[in-house]
Each structure stands twice: as structure tokens, then as C-alpha cells.
């Protein structure tokens, strides 16, 4: 500092270091406010984490005990009144959930993304597009049991037929549809218009722009929304209770009664037998683990599909 005092003096009186420090010092009041604000935000985060941690803790502590090879590889026996190991596992519920949710996804994801593409790329701000958006919003708010009731009335009472796995899938796909549409629409709106324009300016027809440029770019974001929809559907009990109903046997025919994890949990947890209640905890942990694995797989896939 002092070595360069010469030229500084020519420009006028140089401020001393202490004067400058005083001018640029953080005031105690602001330091206090900063600390308070940080403390509040941290506290909020911790409070929000408490239930999350507790849920995972209880699931692990109560559910992990019932996990065994037998638990995953046998069907429930229906024998719930004895405190024996003869109550069976949850194989039919795991496979049933996978089958029902897979069919529901196969219905809801293509239709949902199709609707979102139409809304963003074609419908835009037209009155019909806005009407569709309104109904999608209404659907998002409909309680899940209403979808179950709807399918029950139309496909079971209406046709005079019985419960079936595919009817459960239909109820779940109705539930998934608005979630898929809304999340996909939000992601598609984020794709810069310049990207579409530069593809159109190359002489690409609009449908090819959508399939080759817009959708691949939107894929990683869409995966998140789709996973959210799958996770929500996989955990639903109400739409399945009177559509797919429940059964003990493992079943690969979606035209028959079909067991599922949420319904199994629902039935087991009301049982007076401790072993059966524990099976519900084990099933709940299984459901969470399945969704977690699905999440990881989807993220890996969508990351690979993008260029590193």
C-alpha cells in the first residue's frame, strides 16, 4: 500500500485502511438479522424433515423384520387367526401391483404426453386448449376413490360383470392422466422456442420436430413427472378396492381378481393378529423400496439417453 502511495497522492488524499474498513464493515444489526433469517430457514427445513425421517425409520424398524425369502416368494394363505408362520407372504400383491400399474402406465403415459404435446405445440391458447386445461385441473383434484367408483359403476355394475385387474388399471390410469399431462406440459413449455424454430427453419415438418427435437430434449424432465404419477398410482388403495378387489393367489391374467400391495396393506393392518400387522409393515416397506428402485432406474436411463 505505502509503496504505491506516490501515484495515489497525486489523485487526491488517499483514504487510510482503517477508514475504508469502517466504511465497508458489516453492521452488527445486519449481522443479527442475517443470523436470525438463516436460523429460521434451517429450522423450517429440519421440521419438514422430521416426519420424513420418522416414516422411513418406522418402515425400516417394523417392516424389515418381516422381510425374508418366504415373505417375497409365497402368496398369502388367508389364514390370519393363528400366530403362526403359516400366514404366507406377499408375492401375489407385489406381482399384482406391478401388473396393474404397468397396464395403467401403458394407458396413461402415451395419452398424457400426447395431450401435453397437443396443448403446447398445437392447441396453445385456443379456447379448446384452455377448456382441456381446465378439465385436467379439475381431474387433478378429484379424490382417488371417485375414479374407483366411476369404474365400478360403469364397468362392474354397468356391465354386470365382476372385478378384474384391468378395471383397476383403468381406474389408476384416470388418476395418473392429469398428473402426466400437467407435468409434461410444464416441461414442454420450458423447451426454448428457438430450438423448434431452428429445426423448422431446416425444413423439418412439425411432427418430426416434435419427435426428433422437442421430445428428446424434454425427456429427462418428463421422466420425473411420469415417475410422480406412477408412484402416486402404485400407492393408491381406494381405486382398487372395488375394481381389482383382492385375492390371495398370484395371477397373471388381468381379467381376473388381482391382489395389490396397497389393498394387502389395508386388509392386513386391520387384523388382530400381530404377525399379519407385521406383514403390512413389510409390504409397505416393499412398496416404498419398489418405487425407489424404479426412480433410480428411470434416472439412469434418462441420463444415458442424454449426451453426457
Amino acid at each position: 500500500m505505502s509503496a504505491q502511495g506516490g501515484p495515489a497522492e497525486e489523485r487526491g488524499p488517499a483514504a487510510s485502511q482503517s477508514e475504508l474498513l469502517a466504511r465497508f464493515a458489516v453492521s452488527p444489526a445486519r449481522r443479527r438479522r442475517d443470523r436470525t433469517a438463516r436460523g429460521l430457514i434451517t429450522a423450517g427445513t429440519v421440521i419438514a424433515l422430521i416426519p420424513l425421517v420418522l416414516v422411513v425409520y418406522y418402515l425400516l424398524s417394523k417392516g424389515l423384520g418381516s422381510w425374508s425369502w418366504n415373505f417375497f416368494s409365497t402368496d398369502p394363505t388367508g389364514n390370519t387367526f393363528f400366530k403362526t408362520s403359516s400366514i404366507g407372504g406377499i408375492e401375489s400383491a407385489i406381482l399384482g401391483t406391478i401388473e396393474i400399474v404397468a397396464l395403467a402406465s401403458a394407458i396413461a403415459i402415451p395419452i398424457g404426453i400426447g395431450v401435453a404435446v397437443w396443448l403446447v405445440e398445437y392447441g396453445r391458447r385456443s379456447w379448446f386448449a384452455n377448456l382441456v386445461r381446465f378439465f385436467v385441473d379439475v381431474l387433478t383434484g378429484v379424490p382417488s376413490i371417485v375414479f374407483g367408483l366411476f369404474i365400478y359403476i360403469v364397468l362392474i355394475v354397468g356391465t354386470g360383470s365382476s372385478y378384474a385387474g384391468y378395471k383397476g388399471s383403468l381406474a389408476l390410469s384416470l388418476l395418473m392422466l392429469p398428473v402426466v399431462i400437467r407435468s409434461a406440459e410444464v416441461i414442454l413449455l420450458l423447451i426454448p422456442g428457438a430450438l423448434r424454430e431452428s429445426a423448422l427453419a431446416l425444413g423439418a415438418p412439425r411432427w418430426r420436430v416434435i419427435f426428433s427435437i422437442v421430445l428428446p430434449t424434454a425427456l429427462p424432465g418428463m421422466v420425473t413427472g411420469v415417475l410422480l404419477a406412477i408412484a402416486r398410482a402404485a400407492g393408491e388403495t381406494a381405486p382398487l378396492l372395488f375394481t381389482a378387489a383382492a385375492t390371495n393367489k398370484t395371477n397373471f391374467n388381468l381379467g381376473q381378481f388381482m391382489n395389490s400391495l396397497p389393498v394387502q396393506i389395508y386388509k392386513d393392518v386391520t387384523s388382530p393378529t400381530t404377525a399379519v400387522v407385521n406383514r403390512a409393515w413389510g409390504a409397505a416397506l416393499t412398496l416404498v423400496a419398489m418405487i425407489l428402485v424404479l426412480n433410480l432406474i428411470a434416472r439412469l436411463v434418462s441420463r444415458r439417453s442424454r449426451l453426457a
Partner: protein
Amino acid sequence: MSTDGISSQTANVQDAHVEPESHIERERERIAPQTPEESVQPTAEQGTVQAPAKKTVESKQGLSVKLEGLRAFYGDAEQVKGIDLDFNANEVTAIIGPSGCGKSTMVRCINRMHEEIPGAHAEGRVMLDAMNVYDPSVDVVAVRRAIGMVFQKPNPFPTMSVFDNVAAGLRLSAGRGAQSKTDLRAKVEAALRGAGLWDEVADRLQEPGAGLSGGQQQRLCIARSLAVEPEVILMDEPCSALDPIATLKIEELIDELKQRVTIVIVTHNMQQAARVADRTAFMLSGELVEVGPTQQIFTNPNDSRTEEYVTGKFG
């Protein structure tokens, strides 16, 4: 580079023998939506060359563009208010004017990108050689293949590699079936060489296009539009997001490209217009004030408003 120059020169001479009518005819045929691409290409070479030259980017020629009473609207607001303007084939025409004067809108009308904006439409005629691109029978997709566009911000497709970015136009174009791999490779290389980018990216063709520097990305976008072999390239402030060295490279490139395409460049940079353009047009509030040889516009304009603008008195 010198060999490129020679081949395009010879192509120039060969094309000069074509009767004007047949030139128009073949352009009509090429753009008409019903005609399959494959059957047209041979006729395009007929009568011009004995042994048809290998169809590469280099063998192409620019086409003239003529605006006749062009008006462009956003909803009810008229942004371009009746412009008559000629862009000569194989010349660089610069459009200058203050922000919001309708330069970009006008240029986007030439390849019918303007109508992609919801509520926007254009009136009047845009003649590509002898054909109106707004003719109801004209396929907008074919127009955009003949009239390429380079945007203000470099925008390579983010999910694609360098190679795929250049190949994108060829792959995305309608009516072209599966291209043979070697053919595609040759075209991509030709386009990248044409954009002066080949030497820099030859060993990283499979890396993401978005990983290149800004200037390289913009030249990648130029290569991308060159790959579909357009006759006209519209450039909407192509250097405004680039540093001076990258800008210089693009300007040198523009000078080379005009051998084979007609170039329309919108620019805010008057030095740039003076450096690259054969002719310059000055626009103000949606109207064409003056157009002429670049030299004249910058040194001895006819209109006082042009003079005030180029000397920096406003805008």
C-alpha cells in the same frame, strides 16, 4: 479451400447456359409439394452438365429473392409496412436499422418463419427466383429447405452430437428416406468444411454440439443449414452473441459462402455491414428507406435519415 473455389466457379459457368424459363421450371418443380424429390433431382442436372457433377454443397448456386409489397403483422399491429426489395443471387445484402424497425420480421417472412408465431401473418409476395413462396400450392417445408436460416443465438440441438446436429436437417427433412451412411457422412463433412469448422471438430464429431465454443456453435449452425443445400441463407444478427475473433471468422465465411448461396444478413453492427455486404438496405419503422451498393449507403446516401443513422446521429 482453393479447390472449392474452382469447382464452384465451374458450376457457375455451367449454370449460365441454362435458359431462364427452364431455370424457373425446375425451381417450381423442386418446390411443388406433390413432386417426389428423387425424380426431380436428375432433371435439375439435365441439359446443364454432360456428366452430372457430384451433388455436393459446392455444386449449388444461389437464387435471387424479391419482396413485392411485403407486409407483416403481429395480430393487428403492422410491423413491416409494404416493402419492395431485391436480393440479388450470390450477393450479400445487409439489412440495417434501429431496434424494432422490422428487420428480423421482414427476414423471417422470406422463409415463412414469421407465420410460426401465434397470431402473426404476412401479406404481399416473396419471389424466390420466379416463384412466390406464399403461393397456396407451395409446401412451406420445401421453402425452408431452399431458404436456410441462422439465428442470433447459436442454438445447436442439445441432445445431439456435432455430427448429428449437421445431419439433423437431412434426417428431419420430409420425403427423404433412409440415407446411406457413407452418403450422410460425406454430406456432413462437406457442410462442416463449408462452414470452416471441419478441421476443428473432425476428431470430436461424436461429442455434444453444445460443448463447442460460442463461435464454433454458430458455425455448427451454419453447417447445419448448409447441409440441406439451400439456395438462400438468412442470417439474423449471427454475430451479436460472439466475440470479435469468432465474428471475424463468420464474416470470412460469409464471403466464401456467397459463391454458392444468396445471403441476407440482419446486423446492428454497421462496420460488419460495410465489411461483408455487397448491398445494404436501411429500414426505419417498418419501411425501407433506402437500398444501394454498400459503399454508397455508407458514404453518399440519398436519404438524409440514412445519413443520420450511418453517421451515428440516432438509433
